[in-house]
C-alpha cells in the first residue's frame, strides 16, 4: 500500500510557555521550541505499521519553510521511506484551504492508496484532512483511532466519538483519514536514527513545480485570516494560593474541608 502522511512543524505545547511579543499582536517566537505535531507522529506510526504488515511505502510531506525539513527527517528516522517538502514564499499566509490545495497538487502527482493527516495541529482547527478529501473527491473519516485493512479496496476504521465510544465504519480506498492520538504507541527516535537519514535528499517543490496558482493557495486566496493573537481577560479566574508550600497546603486543606473534599 502506498501511504502519504501530511505532517506539520509546530510550537511544542509541552515545552513552551506562550507569551505575546512587545506589540501584543503575535506570539513571542524568539525562543519557541518547535517539534512535529503530536497527532502526526501517530499518523506516521500507523502508516509504518500498515506497510510493515502489507508492504508498500510511506511518504511524508509538509508545507513549510526550510526549517520544516527537520520534521520530515524525524519522521523518516521513524521509518518513513520518502520525504517531500512543499515550500515557496508564495505559500505564506495560506489558510486551511490553501494548504489543502497545495497538498492536493502533490498527491495528484503520485498514486496513493491512503492519505493520512493528524486529527489537528497547533491551530486546533482539524480542517486540512476533510478539505483535502473533498477536493480530491475521496471518502473521509476524522478522528480515527483504529485501522484494519480488509483487502486492496477497503479498510475498516474506528472513529473516536463522544463518551469514549467508537464508531466503526468501512471505507473504500483510496481515502483520506485524520488520525487521533492514542491509536498506537509511536516509536522512539534516537540520535542514531536521525543520523542515518541526515544525508538523504529531500526534494523541495514550489508553486510552479506543483502547478498551483499562488493567487489561489497563498495569502491573496485566503478567505480566513488571523488578525492578531491576544490573551483574553477572563472573569475572576482562580484564587491563587501563595506563600511557602506549607502555608499553601494549610490554606488548601481548609478549603477542601469546607467544600467536602476531606
Amino acid at each position, binding site marked *: 500500500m502506498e501511504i502519504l502522511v501530511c505532517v506539520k512543524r509546530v*510550537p511544542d505545547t*509541552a515545552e513552551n510557555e*506562550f507569551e505575546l511579543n512587545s506589540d501584543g499582536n503575535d*506570539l513571542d517566537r524568539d525562543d519557541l521550541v518547535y517539534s512535529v505535531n503530536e497527532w502526526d507522529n501517530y499518523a506516521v506510526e500507523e502508516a509504518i505499521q500498515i506497510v510493515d504488515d502489507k508492504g508498500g511505502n510511506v511518504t511524508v510531506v509538509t508545507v513549510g519553510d526550510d526549517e520544516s525539513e527537520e520534521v520530515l527527517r524525524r519522521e523518516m528516522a521513524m521509518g518513513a521511506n520518502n520525504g517531500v517538502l512543499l515550500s515557496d514564499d508564495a505559500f505564506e499566509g495560506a489558510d*486551511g*484551504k490553501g494548504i*489543502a490545495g497545495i497538498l492536493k497538487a502533490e498527491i495528484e502527482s503520485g498514486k496513493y492508496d491512503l492519505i493520512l493527516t493528524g*486529527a489537528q495541529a*497547533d491551530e*486546533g482547527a*482539524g*480542517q486540512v*484532512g*476533510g*478539505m483535502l*478529501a*473533498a477536493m480530491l473527491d*475521496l*471518502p*473521509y*473519516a*476524522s*478522528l480515527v483511532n483504529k485501522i484494519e485493512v480488509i483487502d486492496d479496496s477497503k479498510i*475498516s476504521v*474506528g472513529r*473516536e*466519538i*463522544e*463518551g*469514549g*465510544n*467508537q*464508531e*466503526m*465504519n*468501512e471505507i*473504500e480506498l483510496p481515502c483520506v483519514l*485524520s488520525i487521533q492520538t*492514542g491509536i498506537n*504507541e509511536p516509536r522512539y527516535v534516537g540520535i542514531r536514527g536521525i543520523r542515518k537519514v541526515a544525508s538523504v535528499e529531500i526534494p523541495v517543490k514550489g508553486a510552479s513545480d506543483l502547478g498551483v496558482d499562488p493567487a489561489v493557495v497563498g495569502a491573496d486566496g485566503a*478567505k*480566513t*485570516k488571523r*488578525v*492578531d*493573537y*491576544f490573551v483574553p481577560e477572563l472573569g475572576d*479566574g*482562580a*484564587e491563587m*494560593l501563595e506563600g511557602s508550600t506549607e502555608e*499553601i*497546603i494549610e490554606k*488548601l*486543606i481548609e*478549603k477542601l474541608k469546607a*467544600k*467536602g*473534599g*476531606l
Partner: protein
Amino acid sequence: MADIFAYVPHKVGVVEDIAYEYPDAAAKIDTGAAVTAIVTGTGADLDKACETLTGYYKEVIKVDQAELSYPNAEIIRKVLVNIVPAGAIVLAPHDTFGMDLAPGLSVKMDAGYAADIVDIEGTDGSDLKLVRQELGGAVSTHVTCDSSSGAVLTIRPGAFTPAEDASAGGSVTDKSGDAGDLSSKRTFVEVVEAEVGDVDITKSDVLVSIGRGIEDEENIEVAQELADAMGAVVSCSRPIVDAKWLEKSRQVGTSGQTVKPKVYLAMGISGSFQHMGGVKGNPFIVAVNKNAKAPIFQVADVGIVEDILDFMPELTEAIEDL
C-alpha cells in the same frame, strides 16, 4: 448579511445542546438574520427533534430518509450541499461529528471556513469577525472569514449562551425530496460502547485527576497515595490514556467520561476545552500546575503554581497527619 442555517444533531430525537446555543451565535453575526435549523434522520425520532426545535427557530427544515438514521457525515454533507442555498452561512458543532462534516462541506459549497469559534464580534462588510483559540487554549486569536460566497463555521459547544425562551412558534418544512444522492463510500457499521473499567470515576465525589505533569508512569502512585488519603479516586486527562498509563475508563473529557464530582483536583492538567467539557455540575476545582499561564487557572476556583511531583506527596502527608 446572508441567511444562516444551523445543522442540529440529535440522538434518538433529543437535540444536542448546541441547538440552544446557535441562536446566540447567529445573533452575534447579525441580530436581524433569519436563522433556519436543519435536522436530518428518520421517523418519530426526527419528528420529536423538529418539535423541540420549533420552540427556538422560526423555520426548521427536516430531511427524512432511512439512510440518515445514523448521522454519517459523508452523507449529511451531500444533503446539505443540496439543501442550503449558495452563499449562506452554515453553523455546525465543533465536536466529533462537526469535525467530520464541516471542512469538506466548506469545499463543496466553495465557502469560507473557520473552526471552533468561541465568540463572534459582528461583521465588517462580508467579513465575519470571529474569535478562536490556538495552542490548546494557551492563546486566543481574532480571525476574519470572508463570507461573500458563504461560510461554514463550527461553534464550540458551551461557548455561547443557550436560549431559554421556547416561544418561537416555528414551522417545519419537509425537504426530504431534495436530499439527492445518498450513496457513500464510507459505510457505518456499529458503535462500540466504551469498556467499563475497574473503577467508576463518575461515582466519586472527589477526583484527583492527573495530566501531562505526572511525567512518568511510575509517578501515578504519588497521585494514588493522595487519592487514598482523601478517600478519592484517580482520574486523568487524555495524554495519560494515550500513553497507556491508565485505562480509557479513567479519562475525563468529551472523548472520555463526563463526571460531576463535588471537588476536582486538576494535577498537572493544562485544561483544554475538551478536558473541561467532561467536568460538569460546577465542582470546586483546585488546579496545581507549574506553568502559571496554564489555561486551567482561568476555570479553576483555586490555583497553585507548583510542580505536582513535589506538591502531591507533601499534601498527602499533611492530610494523613490530620
